[in-house]
Every structure is written in C-alpha cells, then in structure tokens.
C-alpha cells in the first residue's frame, strides 16, 4: 500500500473528520427523531457500541493490565482520551467515598466548530463520550454510570464528564462453556 505523503497535517485532518462526521450524524438524528432527549439517549447508545469495540483496541495498543482501584481506572481512561481524542482531561472532583469522579476537558474536539441553536439547548451533544466510557468499562467488568455535568456548548467554561462506579460485574460464562 502506498503510504504517500500528503500536504496536510494528517492528525488535524483526522480530528476534523471525526468532528464533522459526528456533527453530520447528530444533525441527521435531530431530523429523524422528534425529541432532543431521544437524540441524547440514542447518542449514548451509539457511544456504548463504540466503547465495546474501542476497549479492545485500547488494551491491544497499550498492553495495559488490570486496574488496582478506581483511581487507576480513571488514569487509564485519561490515557484513552489522549489517544483517541488527542486531549488530556483532568481527573477531579472525587467524591468523599471515592466512587465518583469527573473528567474536565478544557477543549473538546467534538464541539469544535459546533454551535447549538437555542431550541436545542437541551441536547447533550457530548453524550457519546459517556456512552463510550460505559461501554468500554462494562467490557472489563465495571458497571458505571456516566453523564455530562458541564458543557461548553451550553456556555460552561469546560466540559465535565462525571463517572460513577456502580458495582463490579461478575464473570458470567455462557451456558455450556467451562
């Protein structure tokens, strides 16, 4: 395969490609579904499917092992953010019990070039990220909940993604397999 040079900065093109494709998808969903809540839900579901597949890619590429605790998990998700989106979020706002934390993104590639019209202010545009986190962690036996707390598209200074640990999933073998 001829991996020829191009006069473009491939990294930037790739990130814009993802941003624009995602934008076009959201626009289509808004056309398809009447209700912005349904769109948010659908985006989360879509993210979940992506997370289920991305975790495999992440584990293969980083060769990382088991997490020792939730802090470790948070650090690894942080690495994943840098790998896939090219941004490094801060891990902050730990709950006293240590089962809830937030990722703070100062700039979010997904929302670059994006503006929400007034009638869509309720849309959780970045819900896909929550879905990806939930899907990916479910594949490594962690049941979590994830939601958007702050969103730059709605005038906040940064994007905050909250993650809450629910429980550890036990390995369930499919029937008939030992």
């Amino acid at each position: 395969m001829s991996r020829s040079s191009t006069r473009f900065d491939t990294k930037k093109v790739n990130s814009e490609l993802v941003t624009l494709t995602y934008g076009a998808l959201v626009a289509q969903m808004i056309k398809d579904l009447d209700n912005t809540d349904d769109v948010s839900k659908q985006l989360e579901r879509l993210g979940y499917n992506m997370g289920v597949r991305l975790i495999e890619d992440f584990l293969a590429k980083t060769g990382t092992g088991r997490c020792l605790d939730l802090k470790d998990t948070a650090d690894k998700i942080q690495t994943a953010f840098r790998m896939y989106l090219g941004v490094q979020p801060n891990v902050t706002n730990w709950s006293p019990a240590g089962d809830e934390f937030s990722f703070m993104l100062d700039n979010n590639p997904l929302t670059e070039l994006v503006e929400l019209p007034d009638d869509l202010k309720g849309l959780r545009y970045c819900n896909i990220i929550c879905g990806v986190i939930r899907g990916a962690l479910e594949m490594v036996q962690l049941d979590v909940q994830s939601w958007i707390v702050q969103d730059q598209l709605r005038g906040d200074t940064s994007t905050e993604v909250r993650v809450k640990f629910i429980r550890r999933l036990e390995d369930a073998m499919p029937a008939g397999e030992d």
Partner: protein
Amino acid sequence: MAEETLFEVLHSEIINYVLQNGESRNKDGKDEDLSTIEYIGFSTGYRLIERLTKEMPRFKDELDTMKFICTDFWSAVYKKQIDNLRTNHQGIYVLQDNAFRFLTKISNGKQYLEAAPRYVSFTCGIIRGCLANLNIFCLVTAEVQNMPSCKFHIQVQRT
C-alpha cells in the same frame, strides 16, 4: 494510529444507526435505504473540503481537482492514494482504490459482497460533497466486485 480507529468505529456505528432507524420506519422495505448514509457523507465532505482548501490556490480545471481528490485528499482521509484514475474527458471519472480503507477489514474476496454497499456509500457522499463545494456537481456511485478493491464512478452533471 489510535484516532484512526475512532473514525472507523464511528463510521460503522453510523451505518448501524441508519440501518436500524430505517428498519423501524418501514418494515416491508426490502431495499436498504443508504441515501441517509450518503447524505451524512455529503455534509461531512462539503464542510471538510472547505477547511482543507482554504489556503490553496484555485484549481486549474476539473481534472486538476480530480487529481487533488485522488492524491492529497485521499491520502489525508483514506491513508493512501487512489491507485488508478481514468476519465473519458467528457465528465466521467473512475477512481479505483485497490485496498479501500473501509473494506480491508471486512473481507478479502467475494464473501459478504452483499454488505459492501453499506460501507462505500458514506464515501460516495464525501466525494459528492467535496466536489459540490468546489463547484462541480456530479453523481457518484460505487462499484465493488472483489473486496477490498472499490471503484468510484463520478459523473459530472453539465447544464
């Protein structure tokens, strides 16, 4: 490269979403409705090309534009150049990619050929969107005979 995986996963989820959504709307429809996927590609391409070419000099002519799509643009988006560009100089262009990015991981040969249209329509849309923004209005169709190679037929509409 990790961020490339992200795009590939997003691409397949778009297809997944559009097909599921189409299914729930018309149960009897046998033909898959791929025009939505094509349209998502169109709006992506339309916007992407504007950002890519903003610092570039104007293209000489139609063929020059096509060459740009086959080389620089294709390398940026599909990680390789188009392997073969043919034209009849009357508005028909055929772009052949022998290892099309979205098909290389699906099959090597004729297996799953019936699923191939799903994975090329986004790109048909991208090409149509790019050219539309460069003031070339056209019809783009794809032809897959043996995966992972793929031919894109561009038919420029003259008014």
